[in-house]
């Protein structure tokens, strides 16, 4: 074990903030695409528009915010130091931002060249990110369910990247590959093997921490991630172009969905037992996400048991909205509303000295503003789900999604500006305090 614990290795505040400030922009772009295309956006999951929409949300919004949060969280919460944090940050942020634009432009225009650029660009940047994070996670002396689940989640990310690169290569170089099968497996790893496992890893840490709930039951925290990973791996093998064992595929798909449902139900129950009674926006976002996760996993089971339902184009759209707009976007928003104010406060602490009062977290983003975004996001979710039977609702749904993302972005911009304002105020107060008496500053370090 390393004697020096890396408690103080928090990266500069600009590292996570650039990811957080970029993510909502892609959410807005997804809303605009919905408005532009109208009900045609969900005519089939295989249209270029549907693929562009998916990647705007999954890579542009979700992965963007997730990578930023991981770069921040690993050194602080997991004692895992990132190699070359600045370079990794630039590379990952560029990979995600330019990569999303390349993919979306490639889907919408059908230009093979864009995929040929996207493949090496995204594989190198995101692949390097995943490998560096994985190495950091294996080298940390810290232990516990969060660390072991994070390791498994990053494996899931690597599988997702590899399959995504394969698909994009097929588009770029017109390779004859079983695209539909690979797409199913790619999507399942992206949403289940990476995003879901990341949410679970973080939940073991923050659900008890933010609301003072009992800890997750040990059996769940110990086995959830590995079991889901193995179920997904086995399910993926049933897609190999051998004789496809349809019954086994359905059974594994249902098992993975039901296991995830158990996670969501346990989380809701723990939150119900919280000792902290004050309700905050972050709690509401988490509770919404977990309630929708129960519905979404139930929908997956129904879909698995009714094979013909795949032909109805509304089903993939419904699942996509449930999982991305209903589960992952709310968790991310709720987390950002804790992470950004706390980082502000923590970094401001370093400017000041003991005795100099630093504004508290609530002064970074006000709670009513967070609540407003919660309501807008809830409206977007309900309208987009209702658009499956009533397609014209896609227009107000798209508007609500844009509004939610604009509001989120504005709240994050306010937090960033408050950081700048408070830090110059603190510096000025510090200078004013030191100016009249030119004595050497006392040993203020604790």
């Amino acid at each position, binding site marked *: 074990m390393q*004697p020096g*614990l890396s*408690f103080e290795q928090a990266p500069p505040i600009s590292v996570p903030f650039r990811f957080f400030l970029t993510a909502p922009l892609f959410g807005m772009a997804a809303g605009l695409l919905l408005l532009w295309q109208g009900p045609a956006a969900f005519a089939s999951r295989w249209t270029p528009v549907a693929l562009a929409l998916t990647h705007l949300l999954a890579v542009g919004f979700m992965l963007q915010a997730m990578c930023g949060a991981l770069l921040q969280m690993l050194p602080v*919460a997991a004692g895992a130091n990132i190699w070359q944090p600045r370079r990794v940050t630039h590379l990952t942020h560029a990979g995600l931002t330019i990569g999303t634009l390349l993919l979306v432009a490639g889907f919408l225009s059908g230009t093979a060249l864009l995929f040929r650029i996207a493949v090496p660009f995204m594989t190198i940047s995101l692949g390097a990110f995943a490998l560096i994070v994985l190495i950091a996670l294996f080298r940390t002396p810290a232990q*516990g369910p969060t660390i072991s689940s994070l390791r498994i989640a990053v494996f899931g990310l690597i599988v997702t990247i590899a399959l995504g690169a394969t698909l994009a290569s097929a588009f770029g170089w017109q390779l004859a590959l079983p695209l539909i099968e690979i797409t199913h497996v790619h999507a399942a790893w992206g949403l289940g093997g990476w995003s879901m496992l990341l949410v679970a890893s973080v939940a073991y840490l923050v659900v008890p921490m933010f609301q*003072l709930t009992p800890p997750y039951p040990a059996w769940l925290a110990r086995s959830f991630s590995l079991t889901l990973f193995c179920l997904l791996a086995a399910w993926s093998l049933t897609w190999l172009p051998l004789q496809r064992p349809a019954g086994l595929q359905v059974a594994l798909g249902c098992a993975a969905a039901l296991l995830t449902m158990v996670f969501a139900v346990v989380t809701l129950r723990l939150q119900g037992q919280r000792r902290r009674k004050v309700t905050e926006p972050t709690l509401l976002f988490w509770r919404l996400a977990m309630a929708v996760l129960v519905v979404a996993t139930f929908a997956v089971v129904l879909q698995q048991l009714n094979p013909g339902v795949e032909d109805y184009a509304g089903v993939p759209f419904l699942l996509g909205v449930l999982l991305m707009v209903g589960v992952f976007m709310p968790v991310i928003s709720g987390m950002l509303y804790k992470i950004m104010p706390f980082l502000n*406060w923590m970094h401001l602490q370093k400017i000041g000295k003991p005795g100099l009062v630093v504004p*508290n977290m*609530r002064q970074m983003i006000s709670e009513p503003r967070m609540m407003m975004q919660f309501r807008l996001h809830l409206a977007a979710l309900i309208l987009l789900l209702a658009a499956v039977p009533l397609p014209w609702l896609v227009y107000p749904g798209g508007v609500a999604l844009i509004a939610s993302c604009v509001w989120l972005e504005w709240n994050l911009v306010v937090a960033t500006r408050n950081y700048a304002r408070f830090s110059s105020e603190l510096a000025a107060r510090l200078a004013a305090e030191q100016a009249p008496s030119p004595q050497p500053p006392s040993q203020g370090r*604790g």
Partner: protein
Amino acid sequence: MSGITSALQHHHKLCDEDFAGAEEAAHKGDWTACAAIYDKFRNEMLAHFSVEEDVLFPAFEERSGMVDGPTQVMRSEHVQMRALLQQMDEALLQKNADDFGGTAGTLLIMMQQHNMKEENILYPMCDQALGQDGDLQSRIAAGLNV
């Protein structure tokens, strides 16, 4: 297996409990109840810091030789938490629910991530380095009983 630090670990939970009580009372605007629970919470926190800084950390530092390591980081986080408690004192005095709630929310995260580092990393290191030491254990217990 109860190591030397198990009393400190239990004490974290007690502090959590009283934190939640004080925060809820302030949120409801019941300042009398808040003052009573907060006072208890504050004393528990300060006693906890003192026991660690005056009893546990010096023993660990002496045994392990790690003087500038994790104990130093914990000490500086204690300083930050003491400052937050002071801000809460002020807010309580002025019955300012917004300041009290905002500072409490900040203290909660600070406190929880601090406890996590102690419980996952530092306490196990202390238990390993210090073994079973009855005298130390009773000094810790005495310091926490205020």
